[in-house]
């Protein structure tokens, strides 16, 4: 879901007149209105001086727990693939109940780590620095 200080009426106009020209069928998720920035304030991303929300992005798990966040100033856009990668990593950790962890640069298909006594001091044997990037 997305959220800004704009009203739901402006959300409708933006979706109908611009975003639906970029995304077939328009925006599929709810576009939330936070007039006055009260929710953004609680999340720590409301810019009082400008009267707008900054680019805060929160990953919230099925138990309502914040697993990760990122906050950018307005001129720089997010990387959706990176957000999806993080969600997939958190889902894997959750599915394995923490038996597996995802090392730097992990993405679906890449190897995971199984933390335990046998792995201490041995990560260098299974993970190399070139795996940190694509």
């Amino acid at each position: 879901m997305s959220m800004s200080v704009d009203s739901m009426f402006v959300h409708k106009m933006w979706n109908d007149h611009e975003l639906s020209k970029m995304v077939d069928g328009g925006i599929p998720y709810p576009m939330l209105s936070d007039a006055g920035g009260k929710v953004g304030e609680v999340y720590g991303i409301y810019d009082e001086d400008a009267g707008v929300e900054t680019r805060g992005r929160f990953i919230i798990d099925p138990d309502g727990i914040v697993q990760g966040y990122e906050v950018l100033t307005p001129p720089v856009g997010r990387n959706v693939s990176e957000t999806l990668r993080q969600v997939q990593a958190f889902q894997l950790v959750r599915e394995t109940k923490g038996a597996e962890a995802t090392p730097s640069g992990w993405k679906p298909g890449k190897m995971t780590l199984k933390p335990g006594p046998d792995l201490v001091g041995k990560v260098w044997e299974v993970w190399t620095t070139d795996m940190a990037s694509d």
Partner: protein
Amino acid sequence: MADKPAAGCARPTGGPVGEDPVESQNQEPTPILREGHNMIKVGKPAPDFVAPAYHKGEFTEEKLSDHLGKWVVLCFYPGDFTFV
């Protein structure tokens, strides 16, 4: 999941849910110094809220806690019709 409020002319708004009321009852001047914010922490609950929304042609009301059981990505941004 999402309720549908009547789309009247008033500008509906929502806000945090389950927070302590911020406004005090007494009429004494509010101190300028504000309490340090409880910043969001990873591994801790996301503050619940309700907010009016536009979703697939309808005006709805969204409550974060209605989405328990699913992964949620909540994205704030500066404004509609801005560029990035």
